[in-house]
């Protein structure tokens, strides 16, 4: 049993068939990087993994439990799935530390000081101890995104989903966010990462999954994918990058 399993997943937006029979297994401790042209369904796949989008056919399982089952206890399952968004989505009415403590106190019933101690640890880990009491609009994009990572980690997730988390950042701020993700990968976090950062994909990824037109078209280790892709779609995609 893999940690996260996509089993013949089909997803439609109205008439548009955006995920076509997608199968993908993410093993524990693995960093799985999903790449592909825009509109290929990679973000949608990620959003289905914690049911921000419903699927129409197939099944998605986390540690053997169905996420896509209509009767699934989705609020409980989502606690095990951390998600970081392209647009940060920090809560603007709460300080950095309050962003991190909100869900642990409201969802897990952690005591205030306990949650705060944990939040301080996490903010320290992403290098933002000094900004704990700042509001999101007082932080740079890179800082906001690092708070968002700390916020997701505060629920002690078993897998982290990263949805193009550096795409909205100024180029000079991309590095600090990727660095935090790199550290997280080194610590053994299971990660499913949608990104356009090929350097990161190559260096940190254990697997490169190429999506095109709603399908997984290649699934290779990075040294294979970036040196000698197995499929024509892979070769085509790489040639456009260069």
């Amino acid at each position, binding site marked *: 049993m893999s940690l996260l399993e996509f089993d013949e997943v089909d997803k439609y937006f109205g008439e548009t068939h955006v995920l076509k029979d997608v199968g993908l297994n993410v093993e524990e401790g693995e960093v799985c990087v999903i790449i592909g042209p825009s509109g290929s369904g990679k973000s949608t796949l990620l959003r289905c993994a914690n049911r921000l989008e419903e699927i129409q056919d197939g099944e998605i399982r986390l540690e053997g439990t169905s996420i896509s089952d209509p009767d699934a206890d989705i609020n409980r399952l989502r606690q095990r799935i951390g998600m970081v*968004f392209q647009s940060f989505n920090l809560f603007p*009415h709460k300080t950095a530390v309050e962003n991190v403590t909100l869900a642990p106190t*409201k969802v897990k019933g952690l005591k205030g000081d306990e949650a705060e101690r944990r939040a301080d640890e996490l903010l320290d880990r992403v290098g933002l101890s000094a900004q704990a009491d700042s509001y999101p*609009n007082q932080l740079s994009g890179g800082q906001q995104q690092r708070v968002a990572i700390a916020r*997701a980690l505060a629920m002690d997730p078993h897998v982290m989903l990263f949805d193009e988390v550096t795409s909205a950042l100024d180029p000079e701020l991309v590095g600090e966010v990727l660095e935090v993700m790199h550290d997280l990968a080194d610590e053994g976090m299971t990660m499913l990462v949608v990104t356009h950062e090929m350097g990161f994909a190559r260096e940190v990824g254990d697997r490169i999954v190429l999506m095109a037109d709603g399908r997984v078209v290649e699934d290779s280790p990075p040294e294979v994918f970036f040196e000698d892709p197995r499929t024509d779609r892979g070769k085509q995609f790489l040639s456009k990058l260069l």
Partner: protein
Amino acid sequence: MAESYSEGRTRDGEYQEQFLNDKTLRRLGATIAGLFTLGVGGLVAVIIFTQVDFDLFREIIYPQFVEAFLRVLGIVLVGSLLSVTAGVIVGLGRVSNTRFTNAVATGYVEFFRGTPLLFQLLVIFTGIPAFWPPGQFPISEWAIPTAIIGLTLNHAAYVGEAVRGGIDAVPDGQMEAARSLGMSYVQGMREVVLPQAWRNALAAIGNDQVILVKDTSLLTVIAVPELISAFRNVNSATFDPWTPIILVAIAYLMITIPLGKVVSHLETRSDWGGDRR
């Protein structure tokens, strides 16, 4: 080329001032404002020195106007509290994904915004007691309850629309972030969406509550002894319009101006990390 907004260019390339450039506009504005102030100030002076009867002023201010003022203030406080509370519920109904709930909330808003408050007051004032046999209606002082019910139901519709707009203005990503952390819809609404929606809706809600204050003037029709009734009593007894008019104006402004201040204070307070703080 910043000047090109206020100046036109002639054919031979020289700049020529247009009739209405930035400087003349500024002067024109100040001139109009000055003339307006002069006119209003003069009119008020004329009224105070030639029209207001200060003996009558002292005579009617207490108890008649003070009582009317306190009555209006009480109705406003209760009506505000209830209409904002009910308005939040209406607003939540308007954004509900449950079709039935949504339809009921929409119907509510359509009816209470679509018919005049005066009509609604008459319905409650005359219609409800008609369910009892003549003379059997148990509430003898029905006018004040009518006022509070009518103002609440009517303004809940407007507040509800303001709240709906406030919720719609919160990006979808906020609820998604809350849900992705394992929070329920209710928790996401309460902890994340509504605090932001409230900030977004504050100006519109404040605006509506000022209108609620002024809407108490309609209560004169159902014989609530409020400020307009006080004016009519004095005016019909003395044929003096200006003395009670001044009192009515002061009384309304004593409620509406502080109300505006409260709203802008609340707006400043929810300017999270902004430079207004």
